[in-house]
């Protein structure tokens, strides 16, 4: 009798342990990249996407491309400069800069040249070609295209907090500055505002 009782007890403990363990396993579900999932209220993929969509639209609709073509007779060439993170969060600016670059290049109206970080490796390769590649396929140095414009920008934030509610305001500014004469050819802006409310109490 006592033995069966302890066996029963052991079974109950095992069951409880199993239920407990089941809750610990990692659950992964795939979602669309444009689905909005706000977890903490911090800068996330949705913000990055909103910024890139807005900037791409503003950049391609801007008059600067046509102005450049009319004035110079060729497509404008752009180099990506630095986008300063002046916000209060560790924001990865590369995500939307890469988005903008991709969309603008694919529009076929603007050309991009490799940025400062990227071209070092290319130049190494060209130097290497000088020694190892055949005459016919060798690419000469000094044939790089000098960019007409530099894309720079910044992210700024204002956070206003009162008790459990916080308003987070992000402003992303991007400029295309003419490398010839420092003229600002285009200015784009995206503002994002969120209200984050925290519960007054947790379980």
């Amino acid at each position, binding site marked *: 009798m006592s033995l069966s009782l302890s066996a029963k007890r052991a079974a109950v403990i095992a069951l409880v342990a199993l239920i407990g363990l089941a809750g610990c396993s990692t659950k992964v579900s795939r979602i669309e990249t444009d689905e909005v999932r706000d977890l*903490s209220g911090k800068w996330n993929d949705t913000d990055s996407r909103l910024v890139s969509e807005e900037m791409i639209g503003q950049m391609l609709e801007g008059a600067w491309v046509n102005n450049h073509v009319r004035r110079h007779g060729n497509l404008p060439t752009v180099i990506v400069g630095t986008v*300063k*993170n*002046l*916000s*209060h*969060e*560790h924001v990865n600016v590369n995500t939307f800069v890469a988005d903008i670059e991709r969309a603008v290049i694919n529009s076929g109206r603007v050309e991009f040249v490799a940025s400062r970080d990227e071209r070092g490796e290319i130049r190494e390769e060209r130097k290497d070609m000088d020694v190892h590649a055949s005459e016919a396929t060798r690419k000469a140095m000094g044939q790089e295209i000098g960019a007409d414009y530099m894309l720079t920008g910044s992210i700024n*934030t204002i*956070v206003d*907090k*009162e*008790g*459990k509610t916080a308003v987070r305001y992000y402003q992303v500014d991007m400029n295309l500055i003419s490398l010839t004469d420092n003229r600002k050819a285009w200015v784009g802006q995206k503002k994002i505002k969120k209200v984050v409310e*925290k*519960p*007054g*109490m*947790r*379980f």
Partner: protein
Amino acid sequence: MQRLCRVSRWAWPLLLMAMLGGCATYSASRPALEASLAAGQYEQALKQLAEHPGPERDRVLHLLDRAMLQRLAGDYGASNASFEEAKRIIDEFSTISATETSASFLINDATTTYVGEPFEQALLHAYAALNYLDLGDDEAARVEALQVDLTLQSLAEDDEGPLARDPFARYLAGIIYERRGEWSDALISYRMAYEGYKAHARLYPIAVPSALKEDLLRLTARVGLMDEHRRFREEFGVPNWQDPGLQNGELVVLLHNGLAPIKREERAVLVPPRVPQVVSIALPRYEPRPGVVSGARVLVDGREVRTEIVEDVTAIAQHTLSGRMPAITARALARAVTKFKITESARKEDKAAGLISNVAGLLTERADTRSWLTLPAEIQLARLRLPAGDHQVCMELLSPAGGVVETHEFAISVAKDSQTVLSRHWIPSLSSRRTP
């Protein structure tokens, strides 16, 4: 039915004992790690820390210790990853929990999720910023400076009093803004640091660092706030102050001195008259950890500066705890009463149950001795203008008697209009801590 009731009466002290886990308090549970830390074996200490992750509610402390050990081991990137995780948990768990609060009234205070005292939260951002400076990422250090501001603002809102105005975190934020050429932001932070030092000086002796006075004078002059500049000249007693000029680079030396105080448990045991029961109350008390050096002498190009205290972690920790003591004591008394009543009702039913309930109550009554133990006891700083070029820096750590304890040589290259930050941690050996 009678039998079942008896089981449930026995069950609650057993449950309490199960929840208690190990009986040691937090601060008494890690002698091996302390030994490795004192011996300067940071990799070993990290291994020992990983072997004892502790309960989930102490996760923030685990991460803070890990981040500091990773910083000491020179792995600044990993250290910041740990700090980021700690920030996320602090953010998530800073709201009061219903279950944890009731557990703190029933079992003990250490059953709540630890989210750090105000000074620990401020220093979290300060050390993350220092990590970024060591990595050469000024922009990310600036993010931490902004987060210091947000953290201290929300702590001020929570009515933490003058202790929420952490002066060093503000001062460091100012230094970060100034090195980026953001003069007005830097000035605002320096002003807040100055106000912070004055507020803290009302609680414990701390002087406004002379480096900060110099910074306030320099920046008010640069931004053109001449009224304020004149007022500072009067306040600091330097009517003939001269701007040392902008052409030079600057060296900032930080000495992270000793180890933060440790919380110990103090226990009072009472035997109420005419009741066969023992009541116990356990309260935390900070104990400073000896072995700090008195400061550092920095020698460059035949010039000499002494570091000054910019953050007295020991004093801030002690005042933070004494501010919390009324609430901690009230909770401990409420717990004692609850445990007493439960034991009494159990004893009336069954003597053995009463005894077990009493023992469980005694065992679970532990003080909350959790704190960030790898923090230094104090932070000292010296700022020094240097001409651009290569310099040999010699840093001598001085004992309280004035003798040189340790010498460090650094070769630095100062660029024009730029700033070099050098950090040095001094962790006393175990033997020096035994004989203060």
